């Protein structure tokens, strides 16, 4: 009787089995630009998994990013992907959605892009209940440009432009979205893998303006400037100090420097989107004269 010895197997496949997320990624673009220990990668993984589980037609799914580290996500997802200008992912996505209403449009970008330079678009898209899923990665800092202060930097945290600590009050992002009219608002940290994936899967299937904020470490800048250790230290800290409180009053979701972060789903409302309101209104006012934009697009594509 012969026994196969460890180390003598010869039946390895020529290629290793495909990673389960590979079908959703542009594998030819891997490795990505993100630093070791960055929290963005897990969010991409969670989103890809959620997309697969949601059953949406991936040919009809688009992802739009602005500028910054998180803004590079559109370049790695194997969907129709648009890497746009700084702050303008939401209005670009608005045109995309309204131009071809059958598209599933996700905006994937960072805190600086979406609430700093793009803050005006963020609140107006929420006000209109534009049918967009917005994944906002909040690392409390402008990462790609070198660690400058963001509208989300907690009080007293150091950044490269607040070297003596931040004295500007930050945005409470879920509250900003909810008070502007968002239909769905949730927050997790990038180490809440299963909860985040579940939330994204649910959010993909909801409609209207949906915000999912994900807290992620920036080990290269935010953690280093604030002596918070490695990326894994940051992820573990945010995760372990998270307080899960579904349905929490969004006024109470402000984030203090290195304090517990309230996570969960805070808003989940059925309400008509911009396009539904438009169709309903014109249908009522104009009757049979109203010709809505075809789901497949205008004029030659209709």
């Amino acid at each position, binding site marked *: 009787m012969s026994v196969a010895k460890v180390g003598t197997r010869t039946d390895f496949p020529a290629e290793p089995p495909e990673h389960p997320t590979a079908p959703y990624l*542009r594998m030819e*673009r891997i490795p990505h630009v993100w630093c070791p220990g960055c929290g963005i990668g897990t969010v991409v993984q969670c989103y890809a998994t959620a997309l697969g589980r949601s059953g949406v037609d*991936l*040919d*009809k799914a*688009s992802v*739009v990013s602005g500028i910054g580290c998180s803004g590079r996500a*559109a*370049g790695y997802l*194997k*969907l*129709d*992907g*648009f*890497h*746009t*200008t700084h*702050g*303008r992912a*939401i*209005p*670009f*996505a*608005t*045109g*995309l*959605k*309204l*131009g*071809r209403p*059958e*598209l599933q449009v996700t905006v994937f970008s960072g805190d600086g892009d979406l609430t700093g330079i793009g803050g*005006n*678009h963020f609140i*107006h898209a929420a006000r209109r209940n534009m049918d967009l899923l917005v994944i906002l990665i909040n690392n409390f800092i402008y990462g790609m440009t070198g660690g400058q202060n963001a509208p989300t930097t907690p009080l007293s945290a150091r950044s490269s432009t607040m070297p003596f600590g931040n004295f500007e009050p930050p945005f409470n992002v879920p509250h900003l979205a909810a008070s502007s009219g968002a239909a769905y608002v949730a927050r997790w940290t990038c180490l809440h893998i299963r909860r985040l994936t579940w939330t994204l899967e649910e959010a993909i299937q909801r409609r209207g303006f949906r915000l999912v904020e994900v807290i992620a470490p920036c080990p290269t800048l935010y953690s280093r400037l604030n002596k918070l250790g490695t990326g894994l230290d940051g992820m573990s800290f945010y995760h372990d100090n998270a307080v899960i409180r579904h349905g929490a009053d969004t006024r109470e979701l402000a984030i203090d420097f290195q304090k517990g972060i309230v996570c969960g789903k805070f808003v989940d409302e059925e309400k008509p989107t*911009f396009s539904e309101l*438009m169709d309903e209104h*014109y249908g009522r006012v*104009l009757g049979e*004269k*109203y*010709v*809505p*934009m*075809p789901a*497949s*697009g*205008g*004029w*030659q*594509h*209709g």
Partner: protein
Amino acid sequence: MKADPAGVLTGAHYLDGDFACGEGAMAAGCRFVAGYPITPSTEVVERIARRFPLMGGTFIQMEDELASMAAVVGASWTGSKAMTVTSGPGFSLMMENIGLAAMMETPCVVVDVQRGGPSTGLPTMVGQGDVMQARWGSHGDYEVIALTPQSPQEAFDLTIDAFNLAERYRVPVMFLMDECVGHMTERVVIPEPGAIEVVPRALTAKPPAEFEPYRIDGGTIPEFARAGDGYRFHTTGLTHDERGYPVMSAGCQESCVRRLLDKIQGDADRIVRFEEEGTDDADVVVVAYGITARVARLAIEQARRQGVKVGFLRLIVLWPFPEKRIRELAGSVGAFVVPEINYGQIVLEVERCAGGRCDVVSVTHGGGAVHDPAKITGEILAAGAVAA
């Protein structure tokens, strides 16, 4: 392809230039407009907001001009013909995403009904001070096409041409109206849909596996796939390769940006458009555009009555500039006279092309009114006296 009858208001109308531009857009097949209110352009979108619900178009009033232009670029990637409308201050804000449209090679039309500037300037009064901004306003090197109408009829006709050029060259096309043309009301004849030639969005016939969004298979313009057709393409405002992927290198910059220039510069002879009259034996040629062309015509008649041989070159396409024709004329005329409602912008191009071979006279006006024709006549007479 012929125009979609739903967008064509066939007949003879009494319309202002803004309304005529809006009708031109709808006749051209535009079905997405994003805009932000600004005088003296707002009537264009008001017209569209009223008519779009009847023809399957979507108008959205965005929160600002940054968003309007971004939404137009986004909508164009669904294959929809898309447009935004503004005036000087809004045009400044749109420059960011006009650059994106140029870099991503996104067909779209940007209407700028010019008023007096700089800054808030003269909101309700005429200017032509945005003509260089239309060409150079966004950072970096790129090319656009710009057209400029002199009447409401042309506002209609040339808007259709603007959309057709945008489709053919995959560029943002600047439509430079001015407050006078925008707000003057004249007879506008809109033809039958069957008499209106429109260029539809050409979609690639390649299967997704063989498609790359910026690959050139002959010619200078890549094939287009729209979002939602299964191509799963990527596009970016970063310098990119044929796959639409960012490549940060001088080599990629050269191949990426050079083509953005070549596709327009190399075809300039086909794009350039002007109207020329009486230049054969002219001592002086007046070069004008927009409302100033109409004022100049009066000045030319007056100068001719006084015996000056004066020709007229009316610019219809401002960018690319009719370099070749100006160079030719510079060899045979004594002077160019260039009236414009700014402190001398297009005259710089005329000077550049004339290359010192003849005089070039700038007839400036700061805005808020059109030129007194007598001022232009005086310059023609003075230039004519030197030439003769």
